[in-house]
């Protein structure tokens, strides 16, 4: 199935993959004083961090730019949305934090560009 973010199918022109890069608890490093044993402070749930890597593909350079502009606009917007992967797995309240295209656009049979997108659930 197609992936979506905030109900938008921004990336289905090409293959892409998702991976959870960070989840769990946020703790402070062990403290130790001459009078106390080491102890760790359990602060909060760590912010969920998901990374997407893939490739945007279009038949022409202009159409590829349109795809890139749409993703850039979403990344700059900073709104929350639900991220849905190819298997229907949903992560709610995610924000698209960054969109980093590769250092070149590939112009072969088609026009395409590799990218990396990061999503974060703020203050989870």
């Amino acid at each position, binding site marked *: 199935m197609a992936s979506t973010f905030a109900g938008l199918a921004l990336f289905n022109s*090409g*293959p892409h993959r998702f991976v959870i890069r960070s989840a769990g608890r946020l703790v402070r490093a062990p403290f130790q004083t001459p009078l106390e044993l080491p102890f760790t402070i359990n602060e909060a749930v760590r912010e969920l961090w998901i990374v997407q890597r893939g*490739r945007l593909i279009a038949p022409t350079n202009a159409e590829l730019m349109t795809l890139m502009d749409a993703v850039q606009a979403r990344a700059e917007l900073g709104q929350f949305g639900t991220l849905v*992967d190819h*298997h229907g797995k949903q992560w709610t309240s995610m924000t698209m934090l960054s969109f980093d295209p590769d250092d070149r656009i*590939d*112009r072969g049979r088609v026009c*395409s560009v*590799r990218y990396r997108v990061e999503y974060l659930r703020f203050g989870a």
Partner: protein
Amino acid sequence: MIWLNPAKVTLGALALEGVTHIAIDREAERLSEEWTDLGPFAAFADVPEQRVRVLIVRRVAQSETAAPRPGDALALSFRTSATASAAGVRSVSVAQLVVTGVEHAVSAGSSGAASATQRIRGVALSTTGSADPVTETIVEGEV
């Protein structure tokens, strides 16, 4: 692509005699491949950068000094046909061939006379970056 016994071979201002064959090899300089979260097989592949190599091989009948040099950017053109007739004569040209090497080999024939071979290697350049550096057109007339 390979052409055997091409005629009217010119490289820059040089008219090359005794050319036995011209080969044009194409290879991917960079391959883009992508996989998905859905399975083990590649879902995308493309060749956004490719290199076109040219090899000219000719027999040398007498001493020569006017050989092309590495770095020279020269136009290559020749004619070829499946038969020696005027039908289906093709003109092949490379607008800019950058010479990367010129080699010679000498061997003694069965009669004791030496024979020499010259191999000219080069990279074909596109005029625009998107146009194929090798153009082939059907022409009228003799080979």
